């Protein structure tokens, strides 16, 4: 049985470590903020210029000058600091963020990621995604294993325009978890969702992968 969105977020949250500075993308990655383990201090960065992102405000307490990179109203915490977009991406590009958890459209077995445009459709822009995957020390992608059409999203080569080349370290899908070596030595299946079989993964995956199930 495939993992739910919440289960995928919970699996991604297992990549968190105490003291980590983390950037979460839009969509399922946002849910990771709700499942940070008790007693673990994780500081969330928002690339529009904030470190120490707090929860959504109570109704009526929203502040138009305080939004996250998804343009949602948020709040600050005691450890919060604000800075410019140049300083924010200096932090990202300089490798100071420990972990980024992002959504994806396609991931390749060499760690390429496509998540910003589909040829023929309106291009909205990559926002900060290209900077995050290029700069953050460890990148985790969370996405469905297959398109609605059944086509595998974890592929030998991405067919969509890339967000980054050789940038993904871990792929969490609704069916399985893969470690990916950025340097090109391949992908490894390390975990199956509850009730999912290796045969099912083999049938539904276009990418080549080794198997090392705990």
């Amino acid at each position: 049985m495939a993992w739910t969105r919440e289960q995928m977020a919970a699996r991604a949250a297992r990549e968190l470590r105490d003291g980590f500075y983390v950037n979460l993308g839009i969509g399922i990655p946002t849910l990771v903020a709700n499942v940070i383990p008790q007693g673990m201090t994780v500081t969330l960065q928002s690339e529009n210029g904030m470190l120490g992102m707090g929860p959504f405000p109570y109704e009526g307490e929203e502040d138009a000058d305080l939004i996250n990179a998804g343009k949602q109203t948020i709040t600050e915490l005691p450890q919060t600091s604000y800075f410019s977009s140049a300083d924010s991406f200096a932090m990202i590009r300089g490798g100071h963020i420990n972990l980024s958890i992002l959504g994806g459209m396609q991931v390749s077995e060499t760690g390429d990621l496509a998540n910003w445009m589909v040829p023929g459709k309106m291009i909205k822009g990559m926002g900060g995604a290209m900077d995050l995957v290029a700069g953050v020390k460890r990148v985790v992608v969370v996405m469905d294993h297959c398109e609605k059409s059944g086509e595998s999203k974890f592929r030998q080569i991405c067919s969509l325009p890339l967000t980054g080349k050789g940038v993904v370290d871990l792929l969490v899908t609704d069916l399985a978890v893969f470690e990916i070596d950025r340097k090109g030595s391949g992908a490894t299946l390390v975990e199956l969702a509850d009730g999912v079989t290796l045969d099912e993964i083999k049938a539904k995956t276009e990418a080549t992968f080794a198997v090392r199930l705990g």
Partner: protein
Amino acid sequence: MSSKLYPDAQSALSGLTADNITVMSGGFGLCGIPENLIVGLRDSGAKNLTVIGNNVGCDEHGMWLVLANNQIRKVLASYVGENKILESRYMSGDIEIEFNPQGTLAERIRAGGAGIPAFFTRTGYGTAVAEGKETRQFNGEWYVMETGLTADLSLVKAWKGDTAGNLVYRKTARNFNPMIATAGKVTVAEVEELVPAGTLDPDQIHTPGIFVQRMIVGKSYTKHIERLTTRAREKN
């Protein structure tokens, strides 16, 4: 010294707007945008503008006003969603958009203001963003060369400003404003509150007055929220 302070957007932009110029404008989405100066830019009627900023407003708000008034020919931005007019003009070829990764855009503007004509970044290597650009290896990693950006006119929005032109921004409304203030041949700032020089803590000024040539006190801020998101109060 003649005052940097002008009574309104129209007078502050007088002599600075013209067809075919490049204009940078601060803000992330609608957060921290120079609302009054954007209206002034629209009212100037200047055409064939190149507009640089993270976004180009969204439907009915911000730089969308200048877009809807047919004044923009080219856009440099990182994200242009939620903007139907821009979408249709881009698809029809009436407007050119150069997409920049957000951090690359921020750094290009910072570089432009800092006298750095080009720098190398990992961002975009191996993607469409690197096409036509020089790439090079440093310490075994591949990088893309990106160039600095400047503008004929920079428009920024601050929270507080003093009569020397020193600016302080508030929370995430800071975003692109500080770099954009440094990258304009002329920079015009609007502030929510004007204070006498000496009021702001000199250790805590985000944009020193040297970068601000003209300023206005903004009026009637809308501060439209794009995605109001709240949580319910816990019951007692």
